[in-house]
């Protein structure tokens, strides 16, 4: 296990990301680099607008860095250069996303939302037992057939985490998972993440709260598009 921790599972080098707003180029990331070892829990700390979400999206294969300016490797494989189908597969299998605003599908039940990555992935018969176990361990057994709107914020975020973990990703990318919750509920969510981390999950978590960052193994600070 100790060997694994030193081995980077996800590594980003000299990432540049520029958004175009009309005729003006807005550089958001200017040469950010980050390396995450397997089993690590890394916090990315930064003020609002510093590019934390942008960095996370690049790491998760949702977006690509400016062409030729930066390299992201997952297990040594270059993510940004993947073919579309393989990038979809990467998002489906290798990483799990958790967002600040939960982002559950309102028409689906808790169980169906959790199963979704399984249904989208190659398995025709999604792993219902896995979904039930996850939801059960997050204290949601009695909510399986409820709609997201019938749940509290904390419960919704727990469903979102269960969904992210369904396909047993190697790494969880969480973008301010407690940002929309009160302190008490936020702490419960962090407890939950801590438990998952302790059972081996690699987590990259974005936050702008230093106290929350302090709960993690390591904190990197994003400032003006660069990791300090």
């Amino acid at each position, binding site marked *: 296990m100790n060997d694994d921790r030193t081995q980077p599972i996800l590594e980003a080098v000299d990432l540049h990301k520029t958004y175009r707003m009309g005729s003006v180029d807005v550089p958001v990331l200017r040469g950010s680099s980050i390396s995450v070892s397997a089993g690590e829990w890394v916090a990315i700390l930064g003020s609002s607008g510093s590019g934390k*979400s942008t960095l996370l*999206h690049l790491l*998760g294969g*949702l*977006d690509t860095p400016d062409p030729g300016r930066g390299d992201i490797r997952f297990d040594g494989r270059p993510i940004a250069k993947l*073919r*579309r*189908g*393989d990038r*979809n*597969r*990467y*998002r*489906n*299998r290798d990483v799990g*996303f958790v*967002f*600040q*605003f939960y*982002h*559950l*599908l*309102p*028409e*689906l039940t808790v169980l*169906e939302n959790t199963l*979704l*990555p399984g*249904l*989208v*992935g*190659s398995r*025709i018969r*999604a792993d219902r037992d896995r979904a039930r176990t996850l939801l059960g361990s997050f204290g949601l057994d009695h909510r399986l057939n409820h709609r997201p709107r019938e749940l509290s914020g904390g419960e919704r975020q727990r469903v979102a985490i269960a*969904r992210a973990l369904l396909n047993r990703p190697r790494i969880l990318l969480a973008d301010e998972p407690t940002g*929309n919750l009160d302190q008490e509920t936020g702490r419960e969510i962090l407890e939950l993440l801590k438990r998952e981390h302790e059972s081996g999950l690699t987590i990259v978590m974005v936050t702008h709260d230093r106290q929350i960052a302090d709960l993690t193994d390591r904190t990197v600070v994003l400032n003006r598009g660069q990791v300090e």
Partner: protein
Amino acid sequence: MMGQPPTPSYDSRHVYHLLLTSRYLTSRIIPLLAIAAVALCVALVIVVVSVMTGFLDMVRDSGRTLMGDVVISYPINGIPWYEDLIKEIEALPDAQAAAPMVETIGVLRMPYPRGSAKEPKMVQIWGIDGERLAKVTTYEETLMWSNIPEQAKPYVELDRIYQPVIESLDRGQRIEILRISPWENTDSMNDSQVADLAGAITNPEWIEHIRYVLVNSPETFRGSLSSDQIVLMQAALAAEEDMPPLQDQVLRDGVTLARNGQPGIVAGIHVSDANRRDSEGDYQVGGGGHWWLPRYEGALTTIPVDASGGTLEPETEILPFVNEFSSGVYAVDEIRVMIPLEVAQRMMHLDQAEIVDEMDPTKVIGIEPARATMILVKGKDGVSETDLRSSVEKAYSSFLDSVATAHPNGPAPPVPGINPSLQILTWEQQNAGFIGPVEKERALMRTLFSIVYVVCAALVLAIFWAIVYEKTRDIGILRSIGASRPGIVWIFLLYGLVVGVIGALFGLALGWIITINVNGIHDLLAQPPGWLAWGLAALTAVVLIATIIKLFSGRILPVVLGIMGTGILGLFTALVFILDASGGVVIWDPAVYYFSEVPNTIDLPEALITMAGAVIFSLVGAAIPAARAADVDPVKALRYE
């Protein structure tokens, strides 16, 4: 181990599309709107096309039943030795029966109006043998009167009672009656003018004059009557008090084209302008039964043509009307009259005649055979018209051969190719003139209503556009957990497919229900029942009250919806009340469309094509929003709540 080759749509065969489509359908109102739109479009097209097809079928059927399957025609001059030809045809294994007839045009003097100036009418004269025609066509079923209509019964009875009285009147008495009767203005006429008038007026008119004179000036009149006539008139007056039941012979007379052994006329129902169809499709005889045609006689005039094609002196026959027929085709019913074949042959000089020696008119040197201008042939069941036509053509050539040997010196029948007017046609070819326009009309309607598909596609597009807009975030979520772009496209295409299929099925059901009940719906519009108006009024009131209650709920949408609902329902209610008051609207006026019922059979093949069209256009409508969905940038979609 071989790795599965990664494909861009590695997820497109999975079940989440179905899950999402079914959830999107069941948990939202907008897709129901799309389904309703598709269903309405499909129902509309199905109803229109079914009614048009039904209409076309009715026209074709009536065309066929009027003509038989195959028609041999040689107008004006006619085919000699036609009975031999019929024998030849009836011996065919394909043919069931054949009937001869002669056709010409003429002028019919109608019995109306009152007085001496009767209206003449251009008619097509069919000289037929009713019994034989009935074997080839549905002639017997087209006969209008199987009984004397109730309205006309008193008149027919009067006709019968006064018949002997009228016959007993001499010229002087007739003039005297017309001078006394106020019905005709005879003050300024001299006696011979009055006598002319007396010659023109019909028996039913005489009855009116006689009854007036009997009731109002019996004394002045009595002096000029013989004792026999007085007895007759007293008997007539007494008989009026106590009318015996009528003997109904009318249908039989229509088939035999004769009354009491006298040849008669069977006229198309619209030949007499006194006949009217009411909005129910029933015939109303003018004058409350007074103008029932079989009470009268008609004078039929035609111009015969000699063997060299020149015209001869006009021939006129005065024949009683014995019945009327209603074929189902207005163009036929307004112009055709049937008379017995022999009478028509006589009038057209197509009857059998002896050829006499020019030097010695008492010496018969040959026979000029009777001729028929048309032979109508009916095929056996299951024989196609075209097959029957070629058999008939063969029979015709063997008929030519047999005539050549049997009657070497008699007149020869027309020969195909040499006599271009000789035609052997199927009923469809013969009736192309009136089937064609209806077919074109149906094609036009179908084309016009196909625009509905475009509307359908546009509606689905607009609705799906809104759905995709609303679902942008969900699309981002799906992409973030690995859904491919083709996978996203497929969700919305599947959604469009399902909306199209469900809409088409509902449309079929709706179209079916409307088509089957189209006559009921039509009647409802023509005569809205009281419950409809009051029911609508009650519903309007309920919605209005609910709206007023919602005013206090603090929400605006229910109030707006309520006001709109009240408005629309109120409008409908008012409309129904207005319809009630004004006697309803008749869209399918049988007097115009001829058929008394709107065709109400569904055209299933057309319906299936319509449904397929709706599904395809739903997919077309869904394709553009689906493509837009695929282009959604997941990062932007996920950034904000």
